[in-house]
């Protein structure tokens, strides 16, 4: 059999490929394109984004790769907020057009896409990022172009950029109140377990300093590489160091959580004797890990789906209507949802999408958010109520504690020497991102 590629075969294959590609192209018209609306005429400057028929905003999250698990639902929440605002008449009389880019769980891609959104699409604002690594990677882009990013996830602090608004919790709005509560209600001896990267390590330095000040005691700590699922050595250490029970403070992230709680139960460490406090387990994670393993354990967040406010009832109902009854809402989703609303209020107050004016207008904005009243502080973080929830039978949280008032954000860590006494104030040009408080 002859297998060479002669001219006739070449023509046959070539035309076949060509026709197929045209065919595929023609049939693929209903696949979701990156832009939701037909493109508006390209505008010249960021400030000129309003000159079109719509206001363009960028959404920059991972839609593929490892982080897609978490970031996909944040995108859902942001799109829901944009849809609601558009249905209510838009911003400054114009519709919002969302341009969604995929960071692909790759921090360099995040930087490229951020540049693309700013330079090519001329968006008025970007909502995006989840991991600290991706935020740290896009931060220079937003700072050099003097643009604006709204970041919706609880993080380790030690940062205060003029060009970023943080709607998730600063460490003092999640970790510190939960440690206080544990000391008061659950015991004085703590074992710290975390994934091996920046957030857990920073969180644990805060916890250590706090416990030292308040008379608690660290009996041990351990870090797992991300994705590691063998936790036998850790459980042995917990049993050795806490023979009579004690508190486990858990800053694990991702797959390791599943392994940790499954094996914790197998080893006979019950939540009655070994209560655990987690900072990265929310409603979606409970669903994936399995309620049987988590029932009775605690989590600290600013928002739970079970928060009892009128705004939250509306948010949950709207979300379920849009994306299906079996979906749940969680803290980062809520923070992303209110980020869009806070930005909208700032734009309306400024009367333009000019970045400087919006930035100035954003500070001091308040909103009756699903989590309760929030206020944008001069340090670009928002004040939030802190809550502690206990996992219950249906996979949602019973809120066992909530701070009586919203907690002011403190981005610079007051428990480590290098940043003790520093604060951040963007309303005063003399102070800026990091100044020594007197």
């Amino acid at each position: 059999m002859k297998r060479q590629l002669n001219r006739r075969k070449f023509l046959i294959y070539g035309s076949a490929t060509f026709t197929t590609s045209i065919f595929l192209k023609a049939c693929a018209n209903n696949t979701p394109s990156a832009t939701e609306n037909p493109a508006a005429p390209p505008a010249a400057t960021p400030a000129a984004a309003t000159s079109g028929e719509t206001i363009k905003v960028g959404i920059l999250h991972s839609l593929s790769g490892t982080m897609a698990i978490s970031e996909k639902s944040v995108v859902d929440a942001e799109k829901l907020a944009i849809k609601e605002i558009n249905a209510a008449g838009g911003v400054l009389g114009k519709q919002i057009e969302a341009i969604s880019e995929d960071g692909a769980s790759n921090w360099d891609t995040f930087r490229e896409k951020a540049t693309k959104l700013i330079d090519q699409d001329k968006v008025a604002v970007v909502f995006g990022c989840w991991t600290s690594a991706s935020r740290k990677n896009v931060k220079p882009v937003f700072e050099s172009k003097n643009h604006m990013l709204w970041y919706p996830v609880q993080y380790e602090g030690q940062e205060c950029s003029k060009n970023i608004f943080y709607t998730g919790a600063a460490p003092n709005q999640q970790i510190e109140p939960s440690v206080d509560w544990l000391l008061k209600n659950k015991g004085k001896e703590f074992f710290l377990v975390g994934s091996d990267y920046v957030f857990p390590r920073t969180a644990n330095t805060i916890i250590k300093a706090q416990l030292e000040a308040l008379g608690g005691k660290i009996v041990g700590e351990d870090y797992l590489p991300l994705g590691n699922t063998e936790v036998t050595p850790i459980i042995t250490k917990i049993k050795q160091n806490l023979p009579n029970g004690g508190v486990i403070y858990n800053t694990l992230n991702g797959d390791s959580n599943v392994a940790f709680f499954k094996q914790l139960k197998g080893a006979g460490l019950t939540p009655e004797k070994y209560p655990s406090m987690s900072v990265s387990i929310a409603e979606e994670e409970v669903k994936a890990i399995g309620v049987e393993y988590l029932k009775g354990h605690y989590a600290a967040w600013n928002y739970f789906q079970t928060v009892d406010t009128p705004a939250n009832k509306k948010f949950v109902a709207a979300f379920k209507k849009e994306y299906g009854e079996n979906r749940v809402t969680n803290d980062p989703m809520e923070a992303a949802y209110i980020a869009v609303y806070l930005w909208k209020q700032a734009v309306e107050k400024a009367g333009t999408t000019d970045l400087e004016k919006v930035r100035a207008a954003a500070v001091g904005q308040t909103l009756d958010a699903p989590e309760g009243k929030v206020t944008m502080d001069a340090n670009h973080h928002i004040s939030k109520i802190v809550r502690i929830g206990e996992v219950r039978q249906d996979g949602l949280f019973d809120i066992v504690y909530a701070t009586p008032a919203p907690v002011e954000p403190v981005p610079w860590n007051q428990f480590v020497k290098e940043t003790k006494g520093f604060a951040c104030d963007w309303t005063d040009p003399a102070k800026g991102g990091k100044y020594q408080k007197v």
Partner: protein
Amino acid sequence: MGQNNQCPMPLAPFIQKSKRINQQVLAGFLEAIFNGISIGAVLLIAALGLAIVFGLMGVINMAHGELMMFGAYTTFVVQNGCKQLGGVWFEGYIFLALIVAFIFTAFVGLVLEKGVIRYLYGRPLETLLATWGVSLIFQQFVRSVNWVLIIAIAIFCLLFFGGLWVLNSRTNLERVRNWAIAVLLLLSAGITIITGNLLSQTYQLAVTQPWFGAQNVDVTAPTWLQAGMSLGGVQLPFARLFIIALTLICVAGVYIFLQRSSWGLRIRSVTQNRSMSACLGIPTQKVDAVTFALGSGLAGVAGCAISLLGSVGPNTGQNYIIDTFMVVVVGGVGNLAGSIVAALAIGTANFLIGSGTLALLLSSVKPLADFFTFFATTSMAKVMVFALIIVFLQWKPGGIFPQKGRTVDV
């Protein structure tokens, strides 16, 4: 001993105390052994399939982890099915899941061998790249699989391969073969896409909703496997005991299959000398397919086992692939016994270093104790184990039990 009876009263509490300490040391020792074995058992069951595929056949199968993931997802499906039936079914679903996972992943492995690997024997680098690509496809497949995708794939296969089969019966096929394939490909792709679009537009969310999605799925062990029992001060989780037992059964099963069955004899002879086996009438291609399917099926069983301990999601396979290759390489390629020893050794080393037991044992020698305390976190223990493995492979590049004789050169 006689002196003990006569010892004055003040010494009695001391003896009791030393007895208690002895008991503690004994319990600690037993616990270390048990935990080392249980970590090793997980490594071994994950690596067993690879020991056959990579060890015996020499195929660097990067998709091994994804075959485990398929096993874990099969467990998820079986679990959901048994939940509907309830009662005894749910308590015993794990056994059914093991069988179904073995059969399903063996089938996937068979398709993989027939479709990809068959063309790449003797070209390790291409195999590595191709199977890595396959692993990415598998990961994305479980993320986005829905009814439309499944129906589309089924229709395409039916049309394309069915068409080829029909054409095969024609006598003048050779002349029109290329035309036929081009036309068939175009036609079946077109029909598939149109059907898919029609389906998703008519039934909307019911057919386009992903089965599993990108999220991890929840595999809950039966209640009797969730708990544990205490034996002489050592806590033995049932899930761990189950995995150890399962590993033993699998190892024994593989050993008996390779050593006592006629297919095992053929597999061994083909691994030793392919051309001679072919001359003697052994159908080498069939043997390759069976071997690969067996290795894949064992990966499925491993996937089912790890769902008792860890997470089940699209990335599950990636968490294990490095460890499994490590076990096979340390054990020595082409040798099951080596894999067993390597898995147990790595497991025990991991536990002793990571849990700080080693640091505790060496507490009398201060500098050594400090050294091991530094490595006594899980991530640092991993660093140490990797370093030890590198040193070991420098000393014995062929692994614990290196291959001997002429086969080495082949």
